[in-house]
């Protein structure tokens, strides 16, 4: 296969018109990953009802793939049970986006991590209650 030039059409669509951007007030779960040194910071907010992700929003500081993966992972997770959402991997997100450039696979593909971190946050709160 020829080396891909730049980003896929799908990445650019999600970059230009990201889905589920914003904040959920009083979220059931909140996850934040990344740091300013590497240049990508993502946060994900979830609302959970009957173990299903009913609403999900994100905010991201970062490059094109950081924004596109955030947008994609929120689409993928919405309506899924928490167990199903925990199974979404970085590779799944990249595949849904029709691939990412190789050097972006690691650094800017943190969206699944942010989702998992939001779910873990929800679960740890549940345990306390």
């Amino acid at each position, binding site marked *: 296969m020829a080396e891909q030039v730049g980003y896929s059409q799908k990445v650019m669509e999600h*970059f230009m018109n990201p889905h589920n951007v914003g904040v959920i007030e009083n979220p059931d779960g909140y996850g934040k990953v990344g740091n300013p*040194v590497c*240049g990508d*910071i993502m946060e994900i907010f979830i609302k959970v009802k009957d173990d299903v992700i009913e609403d999900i929003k994100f905010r991201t*500081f*970062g*490059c*094109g793939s950081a924004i596109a993966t955030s947008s994609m992972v929120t689409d993928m997770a919405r309506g899924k049970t928490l167990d199903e959402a925990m199974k979404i991997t970085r590779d799944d997100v990249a595949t849904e986006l029709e691939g990412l450039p190789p050097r972006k696979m690691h650094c800017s593909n943190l969206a699944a991590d942010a989702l998992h971190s939001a779910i873990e946050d929800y679960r740890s709160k549940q345990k306390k209650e």
Partner: protein
Amino acid sequence: MEQRIYLDHAAAMPVHPGVARFCRQFPEGFAGNPSTLYQEGLEAQEAIFRAREKVAALIGANAPDSIIFTSGATESNNIAIRGTALRNQRAGKAVVLSAIEHISVLNPAKDLQKSGFVLTLVPVDRYGTIDLDALGAVTPETVVTSVHYANNEIGTIEPIREVAEIVHDRGGLLHVDATDAAGRIPIDVERDGIDLLTLSGNQLGGPDGVGALYIRPGVRVQPVLVGGGQERGLRPGTENVFGIACMGEAARLAGEEMPEESRRLRAIRDRLIAGITEIEEAYLTGHPTERLPHHASFRFSRIEGESIQLAMNMLGIAVATGSACTSRTLEASHVLLAIGLAHDEAHGSMIATLGRGNNVDQVPRIVEATRETVKRLRAITPL
């Protein structure tokens, strides 16, 4: 569809139409190895000699022989740093650079550390101007000091004459990477006191794949590549006759058009800077006045540079960024960190370098596209 606006001349310049016309003079059947004595070879020799004269004239070099042609600025910088340091190491094993040199100067210098050289990076202030007091780091053991004429990311022009005085007072040699400055501001190796000077053919409006290195007569340099004796043995291999001839013409035209063209670009630059710095939390990077006439560079709080480049591209505008995400190493720009920016600040940069295709009428569209891009990305940011 609106016409695209190209604002990344520091990355790649379109070939000047006058250079293209000149290049077409070479008949298709043109061949001739300059090392030969038949007519075709002599014609090639002649073409290279003329190019040497033109390049020498652009930078005020008295002897055309002081110019050697290379494959580009990266090679010139490598010969200047490694070739000079290794040839003169009996005098000492120290190299001094400004902290914001191009990677093609920094990396050969870092590589010399493996051969026992001591490397010192001289800091710059928040505008990117070299700290002349800190140039005290230059000692009699310093065989080569390298300070660029102007920086490609922030446009700041360095006080080269003062640097040269300090270096020469300590008996050292000064190399100056003039890739971004040549053809844009007047350079005179005699007046400025420069011992070695790097030039890029493309940055003068010539083709890619050709560059030059000025070496002051008497300065001893050893080759990096070894082979035949071309270019005084410093750049072996059959000469890129076509590229060299075209670079020569580019140098001539750049020198001829510089006064008028730099005035024209400076006016566009100043309007662009005025317009873009009106955007909330948008700041000029680099020096406000001592900067290249074609160079406008900015940073925007709370957003990231690669996203800026992508979003501007969708609006039909090509800009550069010093963002880590666009670099092959994924590291934040050493230039922006050296001028004192924090990592998150260094990620949000946008660089516009102007050229022949730009005009004042484009400024409102560029400013509006920038405003829209910044607004769009700030709406997504968690910072």
